[in-house]
């Protein structure tokens, strides 16, 4: 039998798509929702950021003025940006390393103990408003646990107004954020460590790996590179979005704007002042920072173990 030559040609895109109709149909419901509530808003946000929009009147095109105002005139935005970058630079890497370190140690345990430790470390990230407890710990008078503890042991003579003193706000928020940052990435690391082939360790021992640190660097980390990439995305994204703990613990506006972040600033304009154009400009800057940092870190992580 001779196949007609035409059938061997590369089929047109349309006919390939028609052949895979069922695949597209199955994906349609999800991607319809995804496009409407995730992709479209990103594009819309960029568009709205070039307008003046207050939800009542039609948006008016004002070009780059929102961005000019944001970057040149808005002092509070600059403080928020500085705080957010500080958060990202400190809590991002530290929480990432802690996730990895704790997962690695938990992996040495077995059965019930492992499950228990996983729960203890993961629970803060899912316990909703439990970070209100930090309000009680950090209460500014002698009734606060931390003040009472420090005064009992003569570290301090007078109670410290933790959340009302600009210089303490940032360090305290960083500690609380680290406390609740062992989330999805942490679980991915625990799971990833369990899947590493045991024979790799035996082979490495024969090849002269002498201690657990060498083993971690030369065997474990390269073997769980995909999880490292995933965990990085989870931790980085979360570290740029810090807002809730600042609003709840330091209030808005916080003293000297010491707890202001890009997201609190965005929500101030978006949900309180209804300046949708301006808050969209903030959102677009935030989007570019989050995605840009993620892409950069992905590139760096590809080099692990190489």
């Amino acid at each position, binding site marked *: 039998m001779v196949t007609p030559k035409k059938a061997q040609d590369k089929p047109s895109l349309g006919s390939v798509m028609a052949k895979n109709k069922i695949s597209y149909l199955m*994906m349609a*419901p*999800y991607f319809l929702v995804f496009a409407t509530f995730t992709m479209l808003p990103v594009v819309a946000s960029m568009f709205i950021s070039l307008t003046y929009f207050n939800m009542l009147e039609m948006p008016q095109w004002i070009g780059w003025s929102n961005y000019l105002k944001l970057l040149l005139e808005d002092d509070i935005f600059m403080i928020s940006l500085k705080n957010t970058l500080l958060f990202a630079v400190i809590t991002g890497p530290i929480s990432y390393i802690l996730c990895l370190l704790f997962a690695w*140690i938990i992996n040495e345990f077995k059965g019930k103990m492992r499950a228990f430790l996983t729960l203890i470390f993961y629970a803060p990230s899912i316990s909703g408003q439990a970070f209100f407890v930090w309000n*009680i710990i950090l209460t500014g008078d002698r009734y606060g646990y931390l003040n009472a503890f420090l005064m009992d042991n003569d570290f301090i003579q007078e109670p410290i107004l933790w959340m009302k003193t600009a210089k303490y706000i940032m360090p305290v928020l960083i500690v609380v954020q680290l406390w609740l940052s062992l989330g999805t990435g942490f679980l991915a690391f625990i799971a990833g460590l369990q899947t590493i082939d045991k024979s790799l360790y035996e082979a490495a021992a024969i090849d002269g790996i002498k201690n657990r640190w060498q083993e971690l660097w030369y065997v474990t980390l390269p073997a769980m590179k995909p999880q490292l990439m995933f965990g990085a995305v989870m931790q980085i994204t979360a570290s740029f979005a810090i807002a809730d703990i600042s609003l709840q613990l330091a209030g808005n506006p916080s003293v000297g704007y010491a707890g202001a972040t890009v997201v609190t600033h965005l929500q101030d304009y978006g949900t309180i002042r209804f300046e949708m154009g301006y808050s969209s400009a903030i*959102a677009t800057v935030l989007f570019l920072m989050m995605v840009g940092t993620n892409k950069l870190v992905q590139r760096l992580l590809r080099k692990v173990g190489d």
Partner: protein
Amino acid sequence: MRLIKVKSSDGPIVVKETFFQRHFRKEKKLNRSRAGNTLLFVFMALCGVFMAMPLVMMVNNAIKPLDEIFQFPPRIFVRNPTFENFTDLFVSMSETWVPFSRYVFNTVFIMGFSVTGHVLIASMAAYPLAKHKFPGKKLLFTLVILSLMFTWQVTQVPNYVIVSYLGINNTYWALIIPAWGYGLGLYLMKQFMEQIPDSLVESARIDGAGEVRTFWTIIMPNVKPAWLTLAIFQFQTMWANTGYTFIRSEELKPLQAAMNQIAAGGAQRTGQAMAVIFILAAIPITFFLICQSSILETMTTSGMKE
């Protein structure tokens, strides 16, 4: 059964190990020094105490009588445990303007539809992405990964506009439908489905099963851990979302919002607030505890390959 060397009067001889030895032999781990173990476990214990302390305080405060909550100096552990905070809370609940059962119904309705809808349409979309070849596959998945790199705050302004435009503002659907397109869920499901052997899908095809049937009878029963994981993650996200932005009618608000309102009732409700924080944290933690092994199983495939 293993052969081991034992000492005897005639020098070392080789014998079969006994039942007792087999079950209690120390697994020799490679590259583990005792000093290293001790160091890491002490470190782990200290961090464990730091992580658990706020949760321990939360539990203790929930069962403290009021005079102990306001005691000076503050104590971490309760002296006379009582459930009066919870009974007070139930009294407040029964006195709300909207009957409390309505809040429970709202939460069950919102959770039920958002979780089942998400698991269903995300699995349906994940199957072609994991097992079919068609144009646009890589692009779609890249978009989903991109969505993991920013948070909902970025899109909140346009989302509000879109939800209003669709006419679902101030209805349950304003919370439910956007939740269906949650990116992490699709990502985890697709990665998990990829490990199902192609031969399984192939043999179903040879038996004459269509794609939808293959999906429903071959794929879905094999990804049960991933369903549970998607459901739990979706639940956690929705539970943390009190829905203030979209839902303004009191009779449509979820349970969490109502409980927060009670807790915000000032100093005389401090005890009840403690009970609220406890309940809001206990529910997601309990769900996680029950599903821990399924979630970890799903997370083993969470790595990013590209």
